[in-house]
């Protein structure tokens, strides 16, 4: 339904211009100022290019200095360990659970589906006190396991529904053919369904990865100095310890680099995941 009217062309161009400004500005400010010296920042020429790009700002943000007391190296490693583990486990178990939800039509499956549906949107505030108690009592608080388990429990409903949505789109004839050949459900799942669902696994992995990497509330309450995540460290640069803007922006860029690169290069899977999450298939 493309339009040829010149008024629409003008409106579209104006809107595009505005959108470009509004959406480029924050990330432009972050990147440009992460490369400046402190005196340059104090001149308040925020939109200007850096005179001499200060790439060592990233090293300072990573390893810390007297101006920047929150080295991001350890938190980024922590976030990587936690997020990668949760992503792999959530995608694996989500595939199994999603297969069950998409292939079973019993009343029991409906009950499970409703429970999963509500759990998808369970506010973290509702479970955080028991989670804190469990991780503290079981001694998991000082290892990554506490956060990994908490994130896994919280994200499994989402990954199950996402995988299930994709499985619903796979024609049943494929499985029926394998059944005739005498394969059981488990063989069918691992040898027939899983191999052709790799793009779906990629979408789910990207969605879960981004969600867990960016999660703040749970890691703020559950992480200890040893397991502090990138988001919590980033929040500290904003809170009690005031950091110079150039180093703060360098730390911000380090914090968003991984999910942002994933989005830029694998945006297709990302969008497919979002749509599956909205149950639009």
């Amino acid at each position: 339904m493309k339009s040829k009217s010149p008024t629409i062309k003008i409106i579209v161009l104006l809107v595009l211009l505005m959108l470009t400004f509004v959406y480029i500005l924050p990330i432009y400010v972050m990147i440009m100022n992460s490369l400046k010296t402190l005196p340059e920042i104090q001149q308040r020429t925020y939109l200007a290019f850096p005179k001499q790009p200060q790439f060592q700002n990233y090293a300072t943000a990573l390893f810390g200095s007297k101006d920047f007391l929150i080295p991001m190296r350890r938190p980024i490693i922590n976030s990587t360990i936690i997020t990668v583990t949760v992503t792999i486990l959530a995608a694996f178990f989500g595939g199994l659970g999603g297969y069950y939800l998409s292939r079973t039509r019993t009343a029991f499956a409906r009950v499970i589906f409703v429970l999963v549906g509500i759990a998808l949107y369970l506010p973290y505030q509702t479970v955080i006190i028991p989670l804190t108690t469990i991780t503290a009592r079981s001694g998991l608080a000082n290892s990554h396991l506490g956060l990994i388990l908490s994130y896994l429990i919280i994200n499994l409903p989402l990954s199950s529904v996402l995988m299930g949505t994709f499985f619903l789109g796979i024609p049943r004839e494929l499985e029926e053919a394998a059944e005739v050949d005498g394969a059981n459900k488990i063989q069918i799942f691992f040898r027939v369904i899983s191999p052709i669902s790799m793009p779906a696994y990629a979408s789910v992995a990207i969605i879960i990865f981004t969600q867990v990497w960016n999660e703040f509330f749970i890691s703020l309450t559950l992480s200890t100095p040893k397991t502090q995540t990138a988001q919590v460290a980033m929040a500290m640069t904003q809170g009690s310890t005031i950091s110079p803007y150039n180093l703060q922006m360098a730390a911000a860029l380090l914090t968003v680099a991984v999910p942002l690169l994933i989005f830029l290069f694998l945006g297709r899977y990302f969008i497919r995941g979002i749509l599956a999450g909205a149950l639009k298939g």
Partner: protein
Amino acid sequence: MIDDCKSLHIKEVNEVISLRAQKRRRIRASIVEFLVFTLPLLVFLSILYGTLVWNVYVSMADWVSTAADYTFTGLKWYNYLFSQGRFWVDVQNNLKWLILGVVPTTILAIFLAYMLELAPFPGVESYVRTLILYPVAMSFVVTGTIWSWMYQPERGVFNTILGSLGIDSPLTYTNNPSTATYWLIVIFIWQYLGFSVIIIQSSFRTSELQEMVEAAIVDGASRLRILFSVILPNIRAGLLVLVSLLLINTLKVFDIVWIVTRSGPGIATDVLATNMIVTAYDQRLASAGAAIGVIIFLLAFILVIPYTIYALRKWFE
């Protein structure tokens, strides 16, 4: 003859045995299937709902220090919350979030998605998608850090830009208690707009709707008319999904407030989620904090009912 009989008998017995074996094999297979496909999901769901029930119990107990106290006190802590002015500030702010975080985002998303359908430029769609969707990959912690710098009244990016254009900006953004929440909501809209456009776009793209639009164009209906009388009534499912997701996300809002204003100035931008963490972890009133958690859950539960019914129908159709 006897041999024949014998072999026949053996055959029958074998058949019975193999039938039994088949049945047993089928039962064993379904047990294994249950263990592999259903059990992990069930276990994790039980833990999740277990913590939910546990939290409900904590909200009715008397846990007020670091040591857990499970003495049943009924609705004591709920009454305590209702008697606090701060709780009602939260309710007001959460209402602002619910309305202003959802309605403008949805309208803007419909407008942009429709514009992309009409736009006669090649490549415009992938450009806009990347442009407005990238914030989805960023955390609110980072977005909030950047925006709180942009919002700074004296040294901030916005007022500096306005100043260099010769405008002495009177705006103090999140420093003004009466408007601070609105400026926070702007960040939310900025972050969620791309996500919303994607969902609306996908509901435009059904073949039935495209045919109806083509028919309306042939009939000479105006673009605006087509939007209001053909498209909007036919994307109700997409709208339900989008509005539900936005409602839940504005109800749960925590990160933006915590990072940008930390509930301030004073408690002007406080919301239920930030109050929960302050109550439970700073003031050590675990039971009261749990009660806020239960209240957020009940509100969320009410908000997702229509969506869950829709999803259930769609899934098992």
